[in-house]
């Protein structure tokens, strides 16, 4: 009989593995957000960070036998969808104004 938790079969894959993967994905997304100048790619990077969070959530839920983790991911998906709609609408608007996708084109509020 296939065990519910599969602790024996999967004993070499722990919560720590998933969390590490999630952390690495998150940091890569963060670095992408910090280095890329294209606004659309920056938003993609935020989506990557969402993705990392989703993996952590589901892993926690799995190892705690709690489906709330998956429910959270559903909400993450919702927010990501809403964000994509709005953010991309904004990006299109900004692109119409300046004919560029560079985030640096919008720095009127600078002090330096």
């Amino acid at each position, binding site marked *: 009989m296939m065990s519910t938790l599969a602790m024996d079969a999967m004993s070499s894959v722990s919560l720590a593995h998933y969390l590490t993967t999630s952390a690495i994905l998150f940091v890569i997304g963060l670095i992408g957000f910090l280095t890329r100048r294209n606004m659309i790619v920056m938003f993609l990077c935020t989506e990557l960070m969402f993705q990392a969070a989703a993996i952590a959530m589901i892993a926690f839920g799995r190892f705690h036998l709690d489906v709330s983790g998956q429910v959270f991911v559903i909400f993450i998906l919702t927010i990501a969808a809403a964000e994509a709609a709005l953010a991309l609408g904004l990006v299109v608007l900004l692109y119409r104004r300046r004919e560029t996708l560079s985030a*640096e084109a919008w720095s009127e*509020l*600078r002090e330096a």
Partner: protein
Amino acid sequence: MMHTAMITPASWIVPFISGADDAHGHHGDHAARVIEAATAANNLGWAGLILWLPLLSLVLCGVCAARGVKSKLPAWITVASLAASFFVTVGLYMQYDAPVTIHLFEWFNLNWSGGSFIAPFALYVDRLTLLWMLFVTGLGTLIALYASEYMEHDVGKGYTRFFAGVSVFLFAMSALVMGDNLVMLYLGWEGVGFASYWLIGYYYTKPSAVAAAKKAFIVNRIGDLGLALGLYLIYHAFGTIQYDQLFQMFQDGSAAAITEKGGWSVSAIPFLLMLGAFGKSAQIPLYVWLPDAMEGPTPVSALIHAATMVTAGVYLLIRMFPVMELHSAALPTVAWVGGLTALLAATIGMAQFDIKRIMAYSTVSQLGYMFLGVGVMTTDAAAAHVFTHAFFKAVLFLTCGAIMHGFAGQLDLRKLSGLRHMPGWRIVSYTMGYACLCLVGFPFITSGFFSKDKIMAEAFVTQGPGFVVLGVIALLTALLTAYYTFRVFFRVCMGPKHYEPGDELHGDDPAHFHPHPPRIAINFVLITICLGAFLAIFAVHKFGFLPGGDKGYAWVKASVIGSTGANGVPHGHHGETAFFADPHKWMVLAASTVTIVGMLIAFYFHLANRKAADKLRASMLANPVTAVLPKAMENKWYVDEVYHAIIRAPLWVVGHACAVFDRYVIDGLLVDGTGRCPRFLARLFQPLQNGVLQSYAVSMAGGIGLVVLLVLLMPRLLEALNAVGGTGG
């Protein structure tokens, strides 16, 4: 509201009165009189009108100013208010029975555990108050009437401002004299100082007037500081500043106990009060403001700077006489300062040419006499001299004003002569002549004779450090006074007719100048006050038929005896001798002789043989040794210059050093520097605000990292600290 703490000074002078004169038989029913007065006090609220009427006048003048009134209305308002105030004073005098406190309203009423500071807005009325208020309001009314004509050039310009200032002055002077406590006295003290500043600077377009106003104000500040410190020390030592409680302590002996263990802070009180009096009454070393104060309109000089305000110092000393006795050196100091001021001012007055300025120095000199009187323990004579001086000096100033008014500002006695022979100037000449006689103390027919005579006699009689020398100085001053006073009179009023107009021509042609003699208001006032100066004889000499004048005492002396200054009234030392005889007897002769000699010298040099005076002056100036004296006297002994060198110049240097310090250290380094700090810091961090999204994100992520690092490290850090503290320590 029912503040009826009854007056006690009357009770502590009763033993003295009855001891001095057995004719005073009613000391037994004194308590009954006090109780009567207590019930009467509640009905005396109308006495507050003496203060409120000038204040009302001020308000109405303000309304006139706001409405732009271009008539003499402000003058009539002021004259009417002051006259009403005078009649209220007379009414109060008629009602007067015993010293009384009239509570008007609560002012300061601070209570805390272990102490209180109470200064109600209340009037303290005793004989001294009434004496002062009678001549203050009376002369105030008359001089305001005089000013209504004198100031007519300024109708529609400064006229309202002038009378508003006079109203302020009368209010403040009434508060000063009638106040029930030292805080009200201080209110009045500062108020008259302010009014004085207001009116000296009346011609504010004249730089000299502005400078004189500032000088008066600043010099008075020095004295006022002394007065304020004195008040504080009185409160500190005795716990009260209300006259009735304060003098009760002197009466029942509790003040003596305080004085014994008081130390320097109690001993300093009389000297601080003295400083205040010297400032207000123009004594050495603070007299320098008064001659310059003549830049104000002449009625102001007559009212404030001759008759009333400058006597406030004398009033203070007489009122606080028991306090002045707290230190044995205080009264001799007053006497010596007074005597030396009298002499110094007289010597300066001898060499001046501006008649108004001569009168100013004569005022300083006569104030010196008054301080001498207080100092040699004859407060009644000092008060008498204040009283008589108020009249005759007012007349002198008013005649000067009339001359100035008629001769377009001409005040140089070398350019005026024979006024007596000019049509319309007769009254001015004769009143001036009589006032001059009063000033020099011409025997028997002038009031000044009696008051001055008394002071000089007491200087010889009273035991004190060098008081005999002071008496001689006073006699010498009397000689000089006689000389310089009649120098003015003989030069201006007598002799051949001659005049040159002054520089305030108001557009007239100097070639066709005609002096315009005074009209009804000025003449009326001159005659009235002159009459007052004559009638004052009966107030200062022993006739005793005036209401309130006790039998055997002159009216003024009785007034002083009925007040807190009673300790300073000499009594029962008839028969002492100085120079082999009783000075009271031979002083009549000595003073008369000295006066007449002085007048004769003036007659020779300034009427009979005017060329001799010029010749003498020229010969003295020719010799460098003898030239020192007239030059120094003409230049006021260089006192202003000395003050300039030792006080003003160092202060100027310090002030400018402070200004530099302020500009470059306080403003530059501290204020601007503080302001630059945030800007500098902002410059430091400004590059962070580069408007680039990623930079902000880096900061944010770095911040999160730091916070997480801190959270992770904190338990470890605490644990490490604990462990080290446990094992290593």
